């Protein structure tokens, strides 16, 4: 029986002990346990009071987490950009200043590498300027509109709201100012650390050599020990589609919200299309989905997709055509509406022509890898994507690794998500600073910010079943509903489920899918568990504050039935 204070000073925390799996090894603060400063002790003392009042003796982990010193201590110990290795201008040059490049740059400086980042357009890339960030601003508006317009919902709170309206320009400005703010934050964070921001279009000119500059202007050649390509992607526009930016648009245009059409076709019902359908219908548009596959929302777990369709599509002013390709889309002109010609995806026979006010092309994204000088290092892109191995090392035409050249993010196509790019960047920096690291992509969560939200990590049920069959193990499914959650009911948002696919024999979490209020925030408990290899039989003892939405996940873990395996970590009893 130790007191919690002496524990934090002397005994290794179980988390540190387990970190040999590598995934969390880039979190150096975990090793700083012994340097707990007096003010942390005081903090700890406060926690102790709090806990003793709750009689919660099983929450050891929680206490240990709280004792970790803040991360900025680590940054503070490193002052700015490092000095380059001999013979090179930089240790690391990153081409592309999106979220992936930014994440890599920050981590590189932390590792003491002399780092430069080349930005050809604007800092922040797609995510910050034309993607996740401004779309969240629009979705924040749409969520509120939806709530205010939902009379029964308001009434159930006892609230009365007179006709909710909006000012389009005001909404658009909110999105724009958010993007600007985040872009400045990103730029400042790099400047503060002393990352060299080089402006211009970057390209590889040979091994460990990069040029940059304005196209047609003066170009500068710099050398770097290691190079990361992080050039991202652009909206993919299929053949036959004429984008005019006014009535036939991509997400780039839609985020500016220059118009709110009365009726818009969204080509593609993936998460981009789905999010925009949420925005447009909340602002009063009617939406028609055109989906090439037989089902809406491909890529989501089928059960989640089904429920999501029931909540996000059916009751809204949305209809859809599935199993069809849009072969020709003509913008509105000469007094004619936008024309969309559909053919059957299988028989290729003409099926229908839609006449609408606008069309949004949300058929995915294409890598932005042209003009990168890849020929100089003998690399051939595949459908535009740069081939890489599991360590993001670029592979050349002879299937050999190109030394010192890495590619992260949308440009390699492994997982086209901003935070995946950033994680890949950090993984590469780990490697170039002498530590092997392989990123577990199955632990990277994804989210769709509709109302309510959808989030997922790991495998879907069909994927898990396939894997289970191949590798010969059993899988089980656990499900919980938001309907039984106090917080969700208090918010009158009981619609939603959480679903976990796991191995009953050893308690491994294979996938978690959540549809419901704040699902995007709830997924991280599951993604962290997968990343750290935490098993259900361990995590189920973790305590969740009541009443919170996180109890949905708590219940999910608790309802799982793991057989023949006892808790792998026996937590030491800690007196509090």
């Amino acid at each position, binding site marked *: 029986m130790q007191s919690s204070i002496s524990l934090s000073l002397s005994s290794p925390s179980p988390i540190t002990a387990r970190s040999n799996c590598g995934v969390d090894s880039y979190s150096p603060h975990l090793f700083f346990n012994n340097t707990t400063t007096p003010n942390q002790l005081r903090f700890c003392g406060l926690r102790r009071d709090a806990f003793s009042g709750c009689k919660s003796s099983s929450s050891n982990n929680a206490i240990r987490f709280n004792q970790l010193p803040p991360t900025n201590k680590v940054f503070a110990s490193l002052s700015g950009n490092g000095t380059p290795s001999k013979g090179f201008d930089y240790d690391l040059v990153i081409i592309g200043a999106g979220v992936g490049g930014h994440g890599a740059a920050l981590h590189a400086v932390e590792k003491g590498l002399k780092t430069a980042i080349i930005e050809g357009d604007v800092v922040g890339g797609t995510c910050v300027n034309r993607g996740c960030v401004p779309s969240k601003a629009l979705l924040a508006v749409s969520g509120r509109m939806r709530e205010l317009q939902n009379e029964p919902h308001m009434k159930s709170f006892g609230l009365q709201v007179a*006709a909710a*309206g909006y000012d389009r320009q005001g909404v658009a400005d909110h999105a724009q100012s958010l993007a600007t703010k985040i872009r400045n934050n990103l730029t400042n964070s790099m400047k503060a650390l002393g990352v060299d921001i080089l402006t211009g279009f970057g390209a590889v000119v040979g091994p460990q050599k990069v040029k940059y500059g304005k196209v047609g202007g003066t170009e500068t050649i710099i050398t770097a020990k290691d190079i990361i390509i992080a050039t991202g992607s652009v909206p993919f526009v299929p053949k036959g589609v004429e984008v005019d930016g006014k009535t036939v648009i991509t997400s780039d245009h839609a985020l500016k919200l220059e118009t709110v059409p009365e009726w818009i076709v969204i080509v593609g019902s993936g998460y981009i299309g789905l999010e925009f359908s949420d925005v447009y*219908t909340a602002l009063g548009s009617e939406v028609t989905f055109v989906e090439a596959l037989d089902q809406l929302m491909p890529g989501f777990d089928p059960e989640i997709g089904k429920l999501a369709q029931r909540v996000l599509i059916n*009751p809204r*002013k*949305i209809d859809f055509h599935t199993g069809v390709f849009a072969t020709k889309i003509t913008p509105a002109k000469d007094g004619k*509406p936008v024309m969309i010609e559909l053919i059957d995806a299988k028989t290729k026979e003409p099926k229908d022509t839609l006449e609408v006010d606008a069309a949004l092309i949300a058929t995915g994204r294409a890598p932005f890898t042209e003009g990168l000088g890849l020929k100089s290092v003998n690399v051939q892109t595949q459908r535009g994507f740069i081939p890489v191995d599991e360590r993001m090392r670029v592979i050349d035409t002879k299937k050999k690794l190109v030394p010192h050249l890495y590619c992260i993010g949308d440009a390699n196509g492994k997982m086209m998500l901003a935070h995946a790019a950033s994680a890949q960047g950090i993984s590469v920096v780990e490697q170039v600073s002498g530590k092997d690291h392989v990123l577990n992509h199955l632990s990277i969560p994804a989210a769709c910010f509709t109302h309510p939200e959808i989030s997922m990590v790991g495998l879907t049920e069909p994927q898990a079943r396939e894997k289970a069959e191949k590798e010969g193990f059993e899988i089980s499914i656990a499900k919980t509903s938001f309907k039984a959650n106090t917080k969700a009911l208090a918010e009158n948002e009981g619609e939603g489920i959480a679903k976990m696919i796991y191995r009953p024999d050893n308690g491994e979490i294979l996938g978690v899918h959540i549809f419901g209020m704040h699902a995007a925030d709830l997924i991280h408990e599951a993604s962290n568990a997968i990343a750290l290899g935490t098993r259900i039989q361990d995590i189920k003892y973790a305590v969740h504050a009541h009443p919170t939405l996180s109890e949905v996940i708590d219940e999910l873990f608790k309802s799982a039935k793991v057989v023949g395996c006892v808790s792998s970590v026996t937590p030491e009893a800690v007196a509090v």
Partner: protein
Amino acid sequence: MSSSLLQSRVPTALSFSSSIAGGTKPQWRFTSAPAVTFTRRTRNSTIHAKIREIFMPALSSTMTEGKIVSWIKSEGDVLSKGESVVVVESDKADMDVETFYDGILAAIVVAEGESAPVGAPIGLLAETEAEIEEAKAKAAGAGSSAPSTPAASAPSPPPPPAPVAAAPTPVAAPVAADGPRKIVSTPFAKKLAKQHKVDINKLVGTGPFGRITPADVEAAAGIAPAKSSAAPVTAAAHAPAAAAAAAPAKSAPTFAEIPGATIVPFTTMQAAVSKNMIESLSVPTFRVGYPIITDALDALYEKVKPKGVTMTALLAKAAAMALVQHPVVNASCKDGKSFTYNSSINIAVAVAINGGLITPVLPDADKLDLYLLSQKWKELVEKARSKQLQPHEYNSGTFTLSNLGMFGVDRFDAILPPGQGAIMAVGASKPTAVADKDGYFSVKSQMLVNVTADHRIVYGADLAAFLKTFAKIVQEPDSLTM
């Protein structure tokens, strides 16, 4: 025998439907469920037809009845085995109920939002189209125990056979006659048509490019435009014919569109004003005017002004004191059958504020002295400007005062706000040549007040008497300061 399909259901098993006609397997036993008795009788009467019932499943051991959240399929939809048909809410969760059989959803017996006990039929499944009618008849008969089909319970009349293109002003449809016209209808229009059973092919669209809009379907179904339509209120560009949403009139006339016009949606406050004004039309009002000499009041105002007393406070106080003597003018008619005599005299004063109109209320204006009233008024105006007024501070008035005198308006006519008995419109006080009873002319300051009142409770003589009292108080204002 007794362990029927129904009783053996475990919470996770959701499929439910059982043959009731021509079925060879033993039926379940429920001793006292009338619905089941009914089912048996049907079984005898229809020997060969294959009409199956979809039952309310038991989704958990504690469930005794379930609520239909939504029908995923509609009447007439072809179902295949294993497809989800309906979503049922139990005490724990919403679950999809699947069908065990192929067929056509012939009739919905329990509509969305309604509840049914576990085991009760909620829908009928026909095997062939020929049996749909029969199933429907059966569903109608089942209305005795279960709520009837949405079609029967819906208040909307059957869709008129003639296409409803007749808006007051025929819209010049720009659709060129190119052979058989393609019918274009918006997603929501389609949904509404299905919901209200309107044959969309018979409609003539009035939307852009001749497309059928939700409004067209609503017109055909004979229902008023949905009040909560999302109001596409784009301030710029083209906003064709969206104006209809603003006017709740039943057959909104289409106004000629003037190119380049800017549509600015109502703010919440403006929408509330609009709503109140429309409501006021249902009250029979009349007006009585009265000239009042204000020299004495003006003199008093000059005296008390340095102490922070405003003209508004003076007028409110005077009105309140007059109302004490004429309680009927301070009353209101809430139901068209009775007088509601208000226990306190709360003077609402109309104020124009940032493009809106609000009526902060001076409560108990008869009891508070002038200085307190003035102070209170200052507070209210400040709150109104910063949009901090609490509901009771603007909706508890029993009598309203509206003063446009400061603009030089000599007289005007106010609209009686719903829920009140009378409103006073005060014009400017102006030097006027007045003849006294002896025929001598003199120039006096005179203002015209005009009171609008609800004639259901306030009659002409009441109002005249009230105004006489009011005029007396204003002309001999010493009592105001007491």
